[in-house]
């Protein structure tokens, strides 16, 4: 009973998501236009209509996952894999320190009756610390459990699926058409098989027309198939015994005695006979062989026409929007056949609209997203050629939005350029500052050297000749520094000369001021 693809429930969210994707992709296809077609919903609206709170949204389908303890096993399971509490093969087994195995759920139930701190192993009564002594079981045990073959929990309703236990959850939740889901009717609290979900609420009483027994509508088919005493009838054509339920299908598809036309009737074959004869006729009938191809072509043409209709409507809307933009951009222009240019970039050329210049302006402007419109398609009216004022406004709104985004881009670019310039400029300033600092530093070194030379000279000269020699040394120091081209240190040297003429302690003071100045 396993179908290759999961059966999405009728109101499964996946379905609606897929359709919303399609809508959005259509939008993307129109992305080169200004906004979208005025009448189409915006992506926001699409998202809103797919949200949970939308009024289209039905309550979610809740399916009961299968209870592993109640599964029916195809073979008697190995007694070593059976939980001593529930007597069925382990479900999510755990191991206790005493090497006894139980289903986790069974163990929790057994311990629910015991006081905290007095939990014991149900088999050997050894004390168990719930937080520490629960261990996972060896992997091989889990694998053996997963490989046990079980029947579908819905086997009583007619599902004949059976497979490894590991797959039963997926089967019940995704594939099995007999899984019970909530009745689609809002005021009905009952459940119904997933295969009958699309039939609406079947929870009303009907009477079997053959045996006049009352039952619920959902049980009627099963009753007429297996239980009803008057369920069979004889086909009036071929006198075979068929179920009343299948009688229509039998006559339509299987009964060999029913008179039917040749399948080439669509292509004017007039042969009509019993089904068996028609079958042999169709072996030779050329028209009957062509019929399937003909029908396929027919269907394809119909599909194409159906697709064409919305497309032509959309083209009409777009053309209207385009002509409106044209008239908006060049309201004073007497020749609306001019190709459109960027709204923000009206050039002086457009003020003089001779026809031979249009090609040049086209070339010069940025790539034009709009196909040029033939002159006779654009009505020369002050009134925009729209279905309503709202369309006009929407189109205007969209073009304005486009302009705003273009301006935003330009602004961003400008901003980036300015930033770059500032960074470059400040980099240069920093470099210069570094150079200056280096120069100042070298000068300070020289000055330091000169000062220490002066001090040592004065110490060597002794106290009597101190004043004279100091002044000479200072003078020579200042001369030295002047020759090295640092005019600032010359001033400092003069100050040192002045301080040297004062008392010794005072020279120290001046020394410190000099330090400050240097720093």
């Amino acid at each position, binding site marked *: 009973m396993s179908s290759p693809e999961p059966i999405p429930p009728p109101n499964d969210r996946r379905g609606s998501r897929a359709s919303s994707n399609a809508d959005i992709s259509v939008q993307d296809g129109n992305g080169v236009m200004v906004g979208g077609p005025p009448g189409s919903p915006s992506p926001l609206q699409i998202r809103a209509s797919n949200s949970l709170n939308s009024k289209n949204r039905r309550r979610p389908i809740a399916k009961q996952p299968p209870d592993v303890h*109640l599964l029916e096993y195809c073979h008697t399971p190995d007694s070593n894999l059976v939980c001593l509490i529930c007597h*069925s093969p382990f479900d999510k087994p755990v191991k206790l320190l005493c090497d006894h195995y139980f289903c986790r*759920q*069974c163990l929790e*139930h*057994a311990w629910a009756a015991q006081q905290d701190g007095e939990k014991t192993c149900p088999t050997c009564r050894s004390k168990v610390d719930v937080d520490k002594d629960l261990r996972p079981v060896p992997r091989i045990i889990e694998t053996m459990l997963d490989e046990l073959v079980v029947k579908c929990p819905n086997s009583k309703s007619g599902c004949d699926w059976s497979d490894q236990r590991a797959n039963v959850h997926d089967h019940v939740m995704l594939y099995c058409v007999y899984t019970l889901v909530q009745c689609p009717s809002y005021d009905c609290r009952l459940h119904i098989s997933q295969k009958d979900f699309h039939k609406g609420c079947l929870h009303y009483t009907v009477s079997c027309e053959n045996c006049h027994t009352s039952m619920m509508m959902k049980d009627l088919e099963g009753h007429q198939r297996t239980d009803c005493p008057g369920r069979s009838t004889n086909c009036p054509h071929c006198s075979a015994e068929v179920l009343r339920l299948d009688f229509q299908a039998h006559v339509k598809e299987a009964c060999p005695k029913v008179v039917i036309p040749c399948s080439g009737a669509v292509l004017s074959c007039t042969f009509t006979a019993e089904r068996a004869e028609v079958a042999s006729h169709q072996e030779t009938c050329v028209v009957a062989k062509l019929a399937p191809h003909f029908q396929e072509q027919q269907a394809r043409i119909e599909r194409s026409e159906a697709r064409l209709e919305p497309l032509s409507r959309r083209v009409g809307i777009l053309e209207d929007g385009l002509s409106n933009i044209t008239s908006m951009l060049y309201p004073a222009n007497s020749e609306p056949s001019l190709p459109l240019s960027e709204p923000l970039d009206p050039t002086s050329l457009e003020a003089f609209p001779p026809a031979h210049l249009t090609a040049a302006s086209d070339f010069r402007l940025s790539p034009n997203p709009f196909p040029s419109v033939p002159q006779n398609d654009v009505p020369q009216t002050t009134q925009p050629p729209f279905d309503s004022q709202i369309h006009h406004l929407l189109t205007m709104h969209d073009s304005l939005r486009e302009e705003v985004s273009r301006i935003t881009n330009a602004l961003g670019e400008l901003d980036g350029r300015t930033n770059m310039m500032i960074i470059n400029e400040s980099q240069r300033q920093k470099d210069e500052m570094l150079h200056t600092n280096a120069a100042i530093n070298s000068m300070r070194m020289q000055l330091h050297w000169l000062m220490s030379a002066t001090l040592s000279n004065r110490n060597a000269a002794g106290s009597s000749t101190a004043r004279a020699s100091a002044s000479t040394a200072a003078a020579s120091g200042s001369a030295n520094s002047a020759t090295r081209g640092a005019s600032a240190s010359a001033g400092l040297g003069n100050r040192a000369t002045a301080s040297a003429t004062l008392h010794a302690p005072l020279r120290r003071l001046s020394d410190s001021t000099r330090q400050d100045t240097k720093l």
Partner: protein
Amino acid sequence: MALSNANNGATNVAARLQKELMDIMTNPTPGITAFPSSENLTIWTATIEGPSGTPYEALVFKLSFEFPATYPYSPPNVLFKTPIYHPNVDFSGRICLDILKDKWSAVYNIGTVLLSLQSLLGEPNNSSPLNGEAAELWDNDMLEYKRKVAARHKTPEELDAA
């Protein structure tokens, strides 16, 4: 958690009792039978044979089991239907056995309970008797004890007749 879910609990009890029935049918233990009543799977009737070498030798005792919705997490209610003279069984058939009370464990089943009762017949717990006279006679006057057991016993046929 699931104990609160009465419906789920009931199906689990039924599932487990079905498996026990299957077990007993496929691997019968000598001297022990058990079968559910025809209309209710949670009420069973069982029989045990008195073990040889005890005063109950060759006697057959009928018992009734009543399983609560929380089985196997709480013990079944077990009664002797056949009148029995025993230190740990009173005159209405109620049994004083720890594993049917506070020492119950979820791994016990009908078979293990019946086996325990069978061994209780041969080894009564005289320190906490329900029937004090029987406990005293068991310790002091085995002949009189045997006479009382025989006097009190009824065969299943007699029970059905009554």
